[in-house]
């Protein structure tokens, strides 16, 4: 087969030539780092519950603490090293969401605090809020239709 014959043959040829990511190693690292972050969250959650906060509030406290921790590590230029090692292990927990807000904020500081930090802060995380919030509204409306016909519309 001649690799440069068509775009398709070349793509197949390139796929064969390009090295794969070390997926087993990556998954292992993602597993234990991600698991560890969740366990830290669980410890904080347990402490909150011991102190008598309700589930909702405890969950919020866990989020805020983990987000603060992630922002702190991002500010210390450490989070990207963790991310490089752990991949999804630090991306998927709420720490990754925080990092994706803090990192562009730091990066675009050079374009000023309003349009730089303020404007670019959501370049990576913006879609998460757009899709997350939109999905929740749709879920709410569907729930309204199927479960609560008796409730008056406002």
């Amino acid at each position: 087969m001649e690799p440069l014959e068509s775009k398709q043959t070349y793509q197949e040829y390139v796929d064969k030539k390009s090295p794969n990511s070390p997926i087993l190693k990556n998954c292992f690292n993602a597993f234990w780092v991600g698991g560890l972050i969740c366990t830290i969250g669980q410890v904080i959650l347990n402490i909150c519950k011991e102190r008598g906060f309700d589930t909702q509030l405890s969950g919020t406290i866990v989020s805020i603490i983990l987000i603060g921790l992630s922002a702190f590590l991002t500010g210390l230029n450490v989070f990207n090293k963790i991310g490089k090692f752990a991949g999804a292990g630090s991306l998927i927990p709420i720490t990754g969401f925080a990092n994706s807000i803090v990192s562009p904020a730091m990066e675009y500081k050079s374009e000023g605090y309003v349009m730089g930090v303020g404007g670019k802060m959501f370049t990576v995380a913006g879609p998460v809020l757009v899709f997350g919030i939109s999905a929740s509204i749709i879920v709410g409306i569907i729930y309204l239709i199927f479960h609560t016909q008796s409730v008056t519309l406002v």
Partner: protein
Amino acid sequence: MEKLGSQTIKFNTPPTILECASIVGPKEAQGPLAKYFDQTLEDEFWGEKTWEKAESKIVKETVNTVISKAGIASSNIDCVFAGDLLNQCISSSFGLRELNIPFFGVFGACSTFVESMSLGAICIESFAKYVLCATSSHFCSAEKQFRFPLELGNQRPPSSQWTVTGSGATILSASGQGPYITYITPGKIIDMGIKDANNMGSAMAPAFIDTLITHFNDTGRSPSYYDAIISGDLGSIGKDIVIDIAKSKGFNIKNNYDDCGVLIFDKNSQDTHSGGSGCACSGTVFSGYLFKQLKEKKLKKILLIATGALMNSTSSQQGESIPGIAHAISIEI
């Protein structure tokens, strides 16, 4: 100056590459070619507030260095060709705004260095005495523009490449003792449909093959004519691909071919994945390493083919494939 075959230009009074200069960033300073560069920086800001300003300063200082090394007055330089990767080539135009020499901004992505030298050589053959060519790139400013914020905790895939921080500049002269630019083969835009912006080597390899084979057909030369055939920034994956495809087309370049992106970093200890990239990749490796090899006559005939990926972040977000380009320049002493 005459046209040869389909694309190649032959110089009847070949321009001399009078002098070269290069400044590189901290990571390149830890690489295997560190000792060949004129100056290595300790940090990526170089006392400036932003990476963009730092990149402009690198261009400016490299150009100043090459002018003083060449020992000519800057007023004798007829024109400058320069370009870089940042939007509207701001590193070059901001870095050289106080130079007071007629300026041509050039964009050929990572092939800019050879593109500038080709245009410069044509100017020398037609009217100019001295022409300055320069290019630059900066890891941080390139990541910011093309990829993600530096502090984002993402993983780079194994096929990704590392943008070289630095600048290379050269002065071409109508008279001199060489090394001479004897031929140039400007490349065509070749797009083989690769869309993965983390696999630039594969996207640019077909353009390299096209220019390489056209050069040999036009000049009647064969790969063994050259002591070294050097590509700009195909990286280790691209290097592998072009050796393989060139062989299947009947050109064995395995023994004398290498890539600037492979040469500038130590792949294993520096974790640069597929190798270096960026305008400064071929710019600094030629200005630092290859030019000295030519001067010392360790290499006598080289074919430098700088490769470029002609895309931007908008085109890749819109799902466009990556068109590649490769310009060849034959340098002999």
